């Protein structure tokens, strides 16, 4: 989907979502494979206490703000966050690596085709929580980006 002034948030979300469809599974050190079970835009508020529901890949909607760029242009400064919820710490790390690599190798297309520039990894975070009998590992990565558009002059 093309990104324009009127579709910055939805355009970026769809592009990143579509891009991450190539992250489907990872192979762990014990030769087992872990495959994404759910790919979503927000962490589900129900049914998260079963091992079979994991891994869950959450592509969050981007957060943006504007700033003046030139007399005729504005610059969108924003971030988008991708979370991976798994039941094994190793698979969380492997998925995060795959996600970061997928975005990194897509930077040129994002910049040249969609005008999304300075896509950079800002930070990563880790969390883990016991839910009943399962331990959930969460890894997140936050990417920043910039996008310029011609402003409306009244």
């Amino acid at each position, binding site marked *: 989907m093309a990104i324009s002034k009127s579709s910055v948030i939805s355009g970026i979300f769809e592009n990143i979502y579509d891009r991450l469809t190539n992250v489907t599974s990872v192979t762990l050190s014990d030769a087992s494979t872990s495959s994404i079970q759910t790919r979503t835009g927000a*962490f*589900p*508020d*129900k*049914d*998260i*206490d079963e091992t079979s529901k994991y891994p869950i890949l959450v592509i969050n909607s981007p*957060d943006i703000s504007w700033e003046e760029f030139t007399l005729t242009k504005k610059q969108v400064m924003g*971030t988008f*966050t991708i*979370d991976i*919820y798994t039941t094994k710490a190793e698979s969380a790390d492997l998925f995060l690596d795959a996600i970061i690599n997928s975005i990194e190798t897509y930077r040129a297309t994002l910049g040249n085709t969609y005008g999304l520039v300075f896509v950079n990894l*800002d*930070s990563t*975070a880790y*969390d883990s*929580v016991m*839910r009943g009998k399962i331990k*959930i590992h*969460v890894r*997140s990565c*936050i990417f920043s980006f910039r996008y310029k558009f011609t402003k409306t002059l009244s």
Partner: protein
Amino acid sequence: MMQIKLKGLEKTQQFLVQLPKSMNKEIMQVSDTFMRSTQKSAKLRAPRLTGRLADSIEFKKIKNQILLIVNSPYGYFQEYGFTPHFIHSDMSDRMGGTVGGLFGRFNSFFWVAKHKPFIQPALEQNLSNLPNLLSQGTKKAIKQAGG
């Protein structure tokens, strides 16, 4: 005769004017990241019988404030605890139904004793990462101000 010439004063002045603005912006950005992360952790830790408690953990930005709000009426009791007590199945579940309806048991009493804090552990988890986030934000702010 000795002449002392100071160069770059204009740039320093500009930096001092720009720094509070960029610092404010970056601190808000860091706060946003921190609160979103805490919201996610709290949602993950919240007990989920119906999912309403997790769903009610909201994030709001009002001017220079970022608020994490738990809208569910039983959020407070899950966080801070309560005196163990019996409740009747006919009592309202505050969602338009009855407590008995939630469990499929009618004309009986339920013993409620356990609570599970979810905000405090989420805060503890995320506070450990806050110094890193602030450090990154400060560096960015200084760079943006021309430092």
